[in-house]
């Protein structure tokens, strides 16, 4: 009988265009977004490959710094170069903005001595940008690499310095900054991490939220319709267990959700591939700039875990949706409850987006892994920088069990007597809420 109930649920949902339209929209929106963003990125990338106006504050004024400045001029990367001797950072930034410079390079006092003592001096490079763009901050990377190469080259030519391979390869510690004059803010950070984290921290939750909201609302609406149309009353008088009735609803909804999620995942993959292909085609030295395909950062095992986690998360969402539907005597109540529940579910996702998961307290981290709604997000971030833990399988099983327990508990509610009471209570709450 369970099979028949699942078939009924699946057919009823899959034949309803109102169910399919959001999935199709999300499948189309992601590639479309990718297309729009990638065309914007095309402009940005062409911007970073054109020569820049560079302001150099030479506070050391030595043979080495003169060597660096001369060579910067002949690389073809510099359209206009001006050398100043300004130690005040604020004044330097003002000069750069007023004279139209896009990059500031600060050659600190004592830089040459530090280099000649076989130590690494700090090299500060500031991107002056009119707005925050992940791509614009790459200009600092270009000049950082260039200056490192030039100093390395200089060291090789200077015979009285004791050299190591590391020192030649990386003779300076670059401090990359981004100065946004419109809001007078200076942002500290490496463009490499900035881009990678933004890819995983923002795109993954966005994709997850799209899937989440669609799955939850679909399951909640379809169950609430059963209440509203009284077809649930009919089901409850059939000689079938309540758990089977709910499981049928859950698995039927989940099968549709899975198809829809797959469409969204395919859309997401196209979206990411667009990023990667654009970056790689425009700049052969992309790797040096720190931008790589998101997929090259995730190992295969991690990717499999991530997909399983996403699927189980959808399953949990469907279970939550069914529970909301059971509690709602009509579709409007289901929608009213769904909105705050979705917010509650996605809020921890925002936390994960903006936090360094490596620094999380282990209890909190495990909690985020146990909750099916946060699991794919934290997993997506972690597998960027490390292999999946041995506990990952346990987390996945926990996520699955969460859904089953939720449905089991809901089936206890599915006694008409209790249901009527709970629905009246929910209706009263809703009236109070609105």
């Amino acid at each position, binding site marked *: *009988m369970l099979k*028949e*109930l699942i*078939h*009924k649920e699946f*057919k*009823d*949902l*899959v*034949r*309803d265009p109102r169910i399919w339209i959001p999935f199709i929209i999300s499948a189309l929106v992601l590639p479309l977004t990718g297309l729009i963003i990638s065309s914007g990125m095309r402009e940005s990338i062409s911007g970073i490959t054109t020569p820049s106006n560079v302001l150099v504050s030479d506070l050391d004024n030595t043979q080495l710094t003169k060597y660096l400045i001369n060579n910067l001029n002949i690389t073809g990367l510099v359209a206009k170069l001006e050398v100043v001797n300004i130690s005040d950072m604020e004044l330097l930034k003002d000069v750069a903005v007023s004279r139209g410079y896009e990059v500031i390079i600060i050659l600190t006092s004592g830089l040459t001595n530090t280099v000649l003592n076989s130590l690494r001096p700090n090299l500060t490079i500031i991107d002056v940008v009119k707005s925050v763009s992940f791509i614009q901050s790459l200009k600092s990377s270009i000049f950082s690499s260039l200056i490192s190469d030039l100093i390395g080259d200089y060291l090789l030519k200077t015979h009285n310095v004791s050299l190591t391979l590391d020192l030649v390869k990386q003779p300076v510690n670059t401090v990359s900054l981004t100065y946004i004059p419109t809001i007078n803010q200076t942002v500290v950070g490496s463009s490499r991490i900035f881009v990678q984290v933004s890819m995983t921290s923002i795109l993954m939750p966005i994709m997850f939220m799209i899937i989440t909201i669609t799955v939850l609302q679909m399951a909640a609406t379809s169950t609430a319709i059963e209440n*509203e*149309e*009284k*077809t649930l*009353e*009919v089901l*409850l*008088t*059939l*000689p*079938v267990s309540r758990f089977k009735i709910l499981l049928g609803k859950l698995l039927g909804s989940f099968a549709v959700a899975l198809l829809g999620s797959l469409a969204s995942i395919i859309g997401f993959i196209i979206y990411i591939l667009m990023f990667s292909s654009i970056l790689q085609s425009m700049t052969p030295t992309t790797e040096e700039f720190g931008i790589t395909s998101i997929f090259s950062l995730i190992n295969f095992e991690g990717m499999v875990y991530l997909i399983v986690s996403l699927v189980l998360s959808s399953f949990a969402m469907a279970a939550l949706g069914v529970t909301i539907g059971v509690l709602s005597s009509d579709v409007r109540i289901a929608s009213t409850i769904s909105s705050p529940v979705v917010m509650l579910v996605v809020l921890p996702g925002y936390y994960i987006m903006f936090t360094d998961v490596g620094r999380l307290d282990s209890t909190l981290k495990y909690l985020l892994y146990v909750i099916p709604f946060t699991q794919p997000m934290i997993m997506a971030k972690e597998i960027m920088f490390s292999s999946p833990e041995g506990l990952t399988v346990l987390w996945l099983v926990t996520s699955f069990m969460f859904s089953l327990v939720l449905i089991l508990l809901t089936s206890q509610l599915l006694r*008409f*007597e209790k249901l*009527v009471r709970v629905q009246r209570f929910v209706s009263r709450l809703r009236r109070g809420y609105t």
Partner: protein
Amino acid sequence: MTSVVVEVKDLVKDYDGFRALNRVSFNVYEGDIFGLIGPNGAGKTTLFRVLATLLLPTSGTATIYGYDVVRDSGRVRKLITYLPEDVGVYRNITAYEYLRLIAKAYYTSSSDVEECVELGVKLLGLGGRIHDKMKTYSKGMRRRVQVVRALMVRPKVAILDEPTVGLDVIYSQSIRELIKEFSRVYRTTVLISSHNMFEVEGLCNRVALISKGKLIIEGFTEELISKYGVKNLEELFVRFVRDVNA
């Protein structure tokens, strides 16, 4: 002597301090088409929901073929079908698929399922439209699907809450004929609630009138009309309900 199929004794049902059923007692016998009549809010739907194992009585008992609707609800559900008032349909499922789903809930062997679906298809009489999604059906067709669904599994007891509500004369008549025919052929005991006194008088051999949760009168339809010297059931209804409200 026909046997008692449904036995209701001193049934009480309270909702949040409101007494929906107040010590209701009656019997329904095998093969009866039993009409439950009463004004809006009298407790008809509550009583049917208790018999259909959906609601728990506050006190008193109700049994179907000797099985208690609370303690033996699983067994009771195998014997009954229930048609809620104003029940809808699955919009994107065809009537054929729906009948098949219901048949599989009651029967395990595929031959029984096939036989049941075949009967359902015959009773429904939709022709080729049985394979259309039910959202394309008129209100009358949808109601007929639900009535057929409740009958085709050949339940021992069919509980039909206002089976013809909101239907035009033609559809109402076709559903009444269907119930009558089915009860005659399969000896199914049918409990019906309705506001249409003409319908109850023509269809039900026995009736019970409840008002404000209390059973007012109960007995054979024709005997009651004759006993109280009224022209028809409607007049009887009006007289007793007015007395209760007075």
